[in-house]
């Protein structure tokens, strides 16, 4: 039976916080996980996004999952969803709902200061192996993915 919250939820983006995001990453154990943080107002984020989506698709069947986390505020959720839809993203799409930004950042990577875009690559055991502050760069990211597969 659907709960009222699930009945109300109809969007593409799922809220994520400092507790749930590490769980979501951990649930993908056995796969290489690429987590990208972006925002609609972040030009470099939007520019690199198609490459990330393409890489995710290219390696999906080999055990790679791309998780995207929008750092937009709730007021911008519609714009974020429109962007994702235009990019063809229909799964593993989240939006910030943290109580405390610092805890959220530290839950992903204590070394991350909060710069956008930011992309993190976790190995099949769920260990953080690579981090990119700013645009990741397709070639470098693809090399890292191949190394972990």
């Amino acid at each position, binding site marked *: 039976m659907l709960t009222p919250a699930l009945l109300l939820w109809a969007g593409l983006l799922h809220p994520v916080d400092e507790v749930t995001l590490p769980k979501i990453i951990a649930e993908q154990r056995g796969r290489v996980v690429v987590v990208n943080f972006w925002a609609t107002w972040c030009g470099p984020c939007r520019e690199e996004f198609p490459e990330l989506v393409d890489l995710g698709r290219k390696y999906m069947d080999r055990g790679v999952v791309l998780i995207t986390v929008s750092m937009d*505020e709730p007021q911008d959720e519609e714009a974020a969803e429109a962007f994702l839809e235009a990019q063809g993203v229909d799964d593993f799409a989240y939006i910030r709902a943290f109580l405390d930004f610092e805890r959220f950042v530290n839950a992903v990577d204590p070394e991350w200061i909060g710069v956008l875009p930011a992309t993190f690559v976790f190995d099949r055991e769920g260990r953080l192996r690579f981090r990119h502050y700013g645009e990741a760069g397709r070639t470098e990211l693809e090399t890292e993915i191949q190394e972990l597969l």
Partner: protein
Amino acid sequence: MHRWNRMVWVAMLWVGCASALDVGTQAPDFSLPDVRTGGTVSPADLLEDHQAVVVVFIATGCPYSNAFNHVMSDLARKYSAKNVAFVGVNSNRTEPADAVRRHAEENDFPFAVVKDEGNVVADRYGAQVTPEVFLVAKNGEIVYHGALGNSRQPTTRAEEVNGEELGGALEDLLSGRPVAVPRTKAFGCTIKR
């Protein structure tokens, strides 16, 4: 040039830009022209006759940095009365000096803004984000590093932003207390190198 500046300069040659300078370390000096007046801006020189210097990395095209423009201005005005100088540093490769000057004029910043060609200053400080703040005490030591404000719930909405984190650090410093929260996360746009 102060003795501490020379020492920091040498130290920074091998530190490079791996990560941001931590609280407790000496702030590197730089000497760059103010984009509006052409006058030389140097934190070490400013500390000769100021209690503290706020070095804030800013951008012309980052919505998150721009949301804080009025906060930077308000804090700079408020604390200039308490003998604190602010310096805005634009290190974005994609934002030329002329655009930086226009941005400073349009926002009527009540503080000097410099163009950091080649990201030299950003690399020395290890700055990654705009806006990102380093509060430098009279003795040249970094006593606060991080956000201007809104560190728990970052927002791009100018009407919702505040300068509480930097303001709190300034109040502590000027009251002679250790800065209670010396580090926060500085959410924002990447500095384009």
